[in-house]
Each structure stands twice: as structure tokens, then as C-alpha cells.
């Protein structure tokens, strides 16, 4: 059965701390229509369709080297799937 569902929310919950400020700013800058919700100790970022984290964008704001593996230190939970995770980019979306 092949059904392409309409675009649905994807998102990521990040630890809300000093270190992740640059990460959040980068995600905000690189994703249109991003919803941001603050909960105790964490920040939830959601949008419809695709959520993108760009290595260069984060590193430029952080002011020190940052590899995409380091995203693991920030993440609490997510919904959607990691459809891409390379040196330059992480993408969360639904496959179907």
C-alpha cells in the first residue's frame, strides 16, 4: 500500500543550557515556521515537514569546532526520523 500522508509535525527536544544556545539559534535561523516551546530544563522545537541542523551554521555561532556527532549531547528526544545524518547536516522528517 502506498499512501503519502500530508506533512506532519517533526521535532526535537533539546537540553536548555548555555552550550545549546548557539545550536538553537542556528536551527531557528535555518528553519522557517519553527515553533519554540520552553519547558523545565528543555526546549522543544517543532515544525511541519523537515527540520534541518546545519553543521556550518552551528559552528559559526558557537565560535569553536562543532561536529554533527556532538548533537547527541544536546538531544533529549525527537519525533520523526533521522533521514540524514552526515558531516554537514542532520535532517529530521517522516519518510512516509
Amino acid at each position, binding site marked *: *500500500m*502506498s*499512501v503519502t*500522508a500530508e506533512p*506532519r*509535525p517533526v521535532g526535537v*527536544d533539546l*537540553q536548555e543550557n548555555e552550550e545549546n544556545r548557539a545550536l538553537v539559534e542556528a536551527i531557528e535561523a535555518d528553519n522557517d515556521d519553527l515553533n519554540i516551546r520552553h*519547558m*523545565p*530544563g*528543555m526546549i522543544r522545537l517543532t515544525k511541519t515537514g523537515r527540520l534541518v541542523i546545519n553543521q556550518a551554521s552551528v*559552528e*559559526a*555561532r558557537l*565560535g*569553536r*569546532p562543532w561536529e*554533527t*556527532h*556532538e548533537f*547527541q*549531547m*544536546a*538531544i*533529549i*528526544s*525527537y*519525533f*520523526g*526520523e*533521522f*533521514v*540524514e*545524518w*552526515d*558531516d554537514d547536516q542532520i535532517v529530521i522528517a*517522516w*519518510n*512516509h
Partner: protein
Amino acid sequence: MTVPAQKPARKLSMKQRYTALTHDLDWTPTYVAEDAIFPFTKFEGIKVHDWNKWEDPFRLTVEAYNKYQAEKDRRLYAVLDGFAQSQGQLGLTEARYMNAMKIFMQGIPIHEYDAHRMFSNCARYLNGPGARFAALCQSMDELRHAQTEIHTLSHYNKYFDGMHDWHKWSDRVWYLSVPKSFFEDAMTAGPFEWLIAIGFSFEYLLTNLLFVPFMSGAAFNGDLPTMTFGFSAQSDESRHMTLGLEAIKFMLEQDEDNLPIVQAWLDKWFWRGYRLISLVAGMMDYMLPKRVMSWKEAFELYFEEQMLNGLFKDLEYYGIKPPRDVQWAIDEKEILSHQVYWILYQYSHAAAFQTTIPDAEDQAWLMESYPETWPVFKATVWDRAQKVVDSGGRYFNPGLPQLCTVCQIPMGFTEPGDPLTQCQRQSVYEGERYDFCSDGCQTIFDNEPVKYRQSWLPVHQIFQGNCGGPTLPDVAAWYGLQPGDGGEYLGSPDNLNWLAWHGQAAKEG
């Protein structure tokens, strides 16, 4: 914003490094048949044609894994040290909050260790190198979780009851047979069922309903160590969610014949997992002096919205349907926490945590969160429990409850639409009667009766004389409970110590 200097290009990309250091380390032995090396991956009927199709988006290598996990541990232990040195336990909202963490301590670390063992098994016995490496990482994660939970909560063990013998209690005490039987059920299944049961159903579908209440509850109630542990573990959990999702997709994509097997496991394990975390529902609505959200709200957000309306739309592509008994769970969201806590309240004299009647502030919150159902519970049970207290007593159930053969919880759940009639289901198999709390549990039994008739039901074991003796003191001694571990919170050592530490007098009455 300055542009940093160009870094020298890596010799290999992330994808290439991952492949070189995991998949490319595998080989096909010529000296022994594949089935002899991997004897457990055929018997469940799951068909796999190409193990190399197993994908791991995190693309970790041993080097990256160790680097980041070590950093997570460093950060966590720094927080634990700081909390201990600054006597952080005095900053909790109130000592009765600790009962939530007692349940956590008793019900979880030992089963993190179970998960560590079974993922270790998968790290050896799954045919594909990608799957094996992902399982190996998860196995180490689960061991880390067991260790960090024990270390995190060990500080509280110095100041509060109900934590000192969690390992022994996990094996013996009645309500802890609920998580124990759940994990042992999954561990004694085959590797593919394990991956759907724990990897997918528990770690993806239901995980947020377990962790967010505890961790946000910790944040709201001054429990910095638990909150920090929670966030530390959750970053591992995102990898676990990914493994679980990959497991189900891999099975569904490898062969269409796998669909009915996977659907049946999904139906079974959603229900078993849902019943297991009903203990969390009772905890979050009744044991947190400062609450985050109600069970009903958490269920709506983390399950109905994110899973049913998100994930299952994705899985529809493969022909997967939402779990068979999901509507029963949705119907229960207004009443689940009340029924569970009412079970815990009347049996906490035989437990390693304490309970108490919700105070005025609690009741106001319950009214606001459950305007339709709270008044029913207040009128039928809580006002009467208060009556007993007002006349100088305290209601504890004088007997032992009827237990569900599958979930092992006292059968306090009710018929859909009728919160005052407990659900009774029975099956007869080879001349013996078995009891169930719901259609969901009954179906699980009926599909595999020879498995579930082996349930070690605490009440039945007590009556067989296997739990120390016939009286409550005998059983409590066999459990290893000490005065102060269970019973009523008000007037307990935890309560009185708390007041003394803060220079306050005990409440009258």
C-alpha cells in the same frame, strides 16, 4: 559573527568512517554455516533477505561513542557531587515527593540491567553487523543507565526510607512483579520479538510517558540529580528510539510476510507496556507536590498526538495498524491514575513506599484536571478514607487482591464507560481458570497460555507459603521491609525528619 579558519578536510566522511569501522569489520566465515553462528534468528518466522539494509543514522563508531558517553558521565557526576555537598535534598518541595523516586528506584534500574543483558545477546546473535553494533551501543547505554540511576539515587538513600534494598524487593515485592514479569517476558522471547517489544513498543511508542513525568516531576520538585540523570539518559534514548524504529521498518521492508507477525507483537507489547506504565500515571497525578501535567494531558500529547497522529501515519505505508486495544487505553485516560493510586493507597502497608490522602491543594488540582471523574472518586473512595482517618484510623485493605495473570496488577481497572464496575475476564485452559483485568490482557493470555500460566503471581505465591509465612509480618520480613519503608506518609520517619530538618512542628491529627 566571525568566520572560523578552514579546517583540514577529514580523510573519511562520517558515513565512510562508520562503514569502515563497523560493517567492513564483518566477514563471512567459510569454516562454519551462518545458521550455526546465528541460531536464533529464524525460529520466530521473521524473514530477512539482506542484513546490510539495516541502517543506523547515528553512524557511531566505538571512538565517537566512548568520547560522548564519557562526557555525559562527567557532567552528570559533577552535578551529583554538587548536590550532595550542598545538602540539596533539603531543597525538595517536600519529603513525600520521594515516594515517586522510591518507585523509580525499585522498579527501574534492575530492568535497565535486564535490557543491558538482552541487548548484549543481540550484539552477539543478530546476523547483521550494523544491527549488532547498534545493539552493542544500546547494551552499554542500558548498563550506564542502571549504574547512573543507582548512583543518582544513592544520595537520597542516606536520608529517606524505602530505597535501601531495591534489588531484593525487585524480586519479591508484589507490585514489583509488574515490571519484572514484563521484562522477563520480553527477554524470554526471541530477538526479533525483543526488538519490537522493548526496542520499538517500549523505547519508541511509550518512552516519553515514562521519562517525561519522572524527569519533569523531578525538575518541578527540586530534584536536581534525577532531572540531570534524566536528561543525560534521554540523549541515549534518542538512539534507542532510532534503533526501535529501524527494527520495525527493517522487518517490514525485508519481507511482506513479516507484517502479521510484527502487527501481533505490536498489539501485545503496546498493551503490556501500557499496563506497566499505569504505575507512572498514579505517580504523576498523586505523588508530586508540584505537578507538571496530568496523566491525561501526557497521554494526549505523547501518545495520541505524537504517536497515533505522527508515527502511525508513517507506518500505515507498510500496512501497520494502531494497536488493537488502543481505544481502551484512550477511554481510560480520565480514570487510570485514580484507580492506580487507589490500589497503592490501600496496599502501601505491604510496600516500600508511602501514600496519603490528597490534601486540599492536591484535590483542587485533581478537580481542575479531571472535572468529570475526580468528583466520582472523591465521593466513592477518598471521602470515606478521610472518614476512617477522622475516627483515628487509616484504611489499609485487610486482605490480598485478585491479580491479573498477565500484567499482574490488582484488578482495579474498570469496564469501559463504567468506572464503578471492576473488569472481570476469565479464561479456562486445560481445566484451570485464569483471571484478567481487561480484554487486552486476556487476549495476550489466550494467544500464548502456556507462557502466561507460568506467571509468578505474588498473592498466589504468598498463599502457597513461598513468601516467608502466612501473616503480613512474615511476608514483610521476607520482603525485607523495615519500619518506615511503607504505610502512611503522615507521621512517618520521612515526614517527621523533614519537619525537623526545616524546624517545623508535625501537623495535628
